[in-house]
């Protein structure tokens, strides 16, 4: 499957968060290129996430500037133009 590069995808997560892992796996399974930010390790990034997204819970996903809170698979699929499973 070709890499999908047209979307700017970012995930904010923590190492101990099972849902964050699930989101990462979802991106990997669907060949989605994304940037992963561990907000548990990087205090600056945590503050950036809180400031930018208004959220203090993870996972937070940013797709082309739109914020999705939690592993909302249908919405993520819709934003990325992926077919439903």
């Amino acid at each position, binding site marked *: 499957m070709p890499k999908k590069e047209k979307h700017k995808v970012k995930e904010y997560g923590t190492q*101990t968060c099972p849902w964050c*892992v699930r989101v990462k796996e979802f991106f990997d399974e669907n060949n989605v290129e994304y940037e992963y930010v561990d907000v548990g390790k990087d205090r600056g990034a945590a503050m950036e996430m809180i400031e930018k997204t208004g959220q203090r819970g993870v996972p937070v996903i940013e797709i082309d500037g739109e914020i999705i809170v939690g592993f909302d698979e249908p919405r993520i699929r819709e934003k990325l133009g992926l077919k439903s499973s």
Partner: protein
Amino acid sequence: MFDVIIIGGGPAGLTAGIFATRRTLKTLIISKEFGGVVSTVPHIENYSGFKAVNGMELMKRMEEQAKASGVEIVYSQEVNEIIEEKDGFTVKTNQKKYKSKAVILAFGKSPRHLDVPGDKEFDNKGVSYCVNCDGPLFKGEDVCVVGGGNSALDAALVMSEIAKKVYIIHRRDEFRGFESMIEKIKSKKNVEFILDSVVKEFKGDKMLRSVIIENIKTKAIKELKVAGAFIEIGSEVKTDFVKKLVKTDENNHIVVNDKCQAFYPNKDKVRPGIFAAGDVTNNAFKQIVVATGQGAIAALQAYNYVKGSDEDISADWGHNKGG
């Protein structure tokens, strides 16, 4: 038209799906989210076949097996109503309607929410129901944990390593958790107990800034400055939407017999076509292994119902599907 619709994608629902499809029933699982509460448990040491397994990993395996068996799964839909029709049931979700001949209720328990002003407003903005997920975001800050059971004590222990200060707010003057855990927490210098107290309100601006607590004995009100509040006050079954259809007990659990058949409300008569399994039922032990066992029973009984027979079903662990 499905043969069976299973509501809930936790251990009971996924196992029911596996057994139903092995009997060639056209099966749909509707689940609000992946894996149910088990998926957030970091360590499981009492599920046969695994010395220790991560909850998310276990649920992924169950989901994979269910999908490989041919189960169709839809997530992020919440069932609002089940309507009995002449030829089966219509299951209405917040998005769609589905039809089936039989229904298995396996939607488990949900974390109990603190129903006070600010709870919803500051959800994910300081108020959290998942310490493993959000805990690391509160490094060096003051937080509180609300609750007095093992999960609350566990959350406090986790946060004592991350936060500057941890308050444990508990409505009683003693804890229900393990003694060893309580001792461990008492030895932590940055943990403070606030007993006989309840949260009255969450306050803040864009983010949570403080909690208002009341001492239930003295009625004294106090404001605690915290950036995070982790709620660990147990779980509840939300069976209101099926109460017109099936019998529930005083704890809202769905009453089932040993074949996981549900009953008519306020009667001892079996309700044909509706089955229940797992934590949502009145089973005596809320364990994963019990839930999976009930899931299998419910699916095999649903098969009997759909096929119009009530025979004992022999073992089916091989490659060949029954039916």
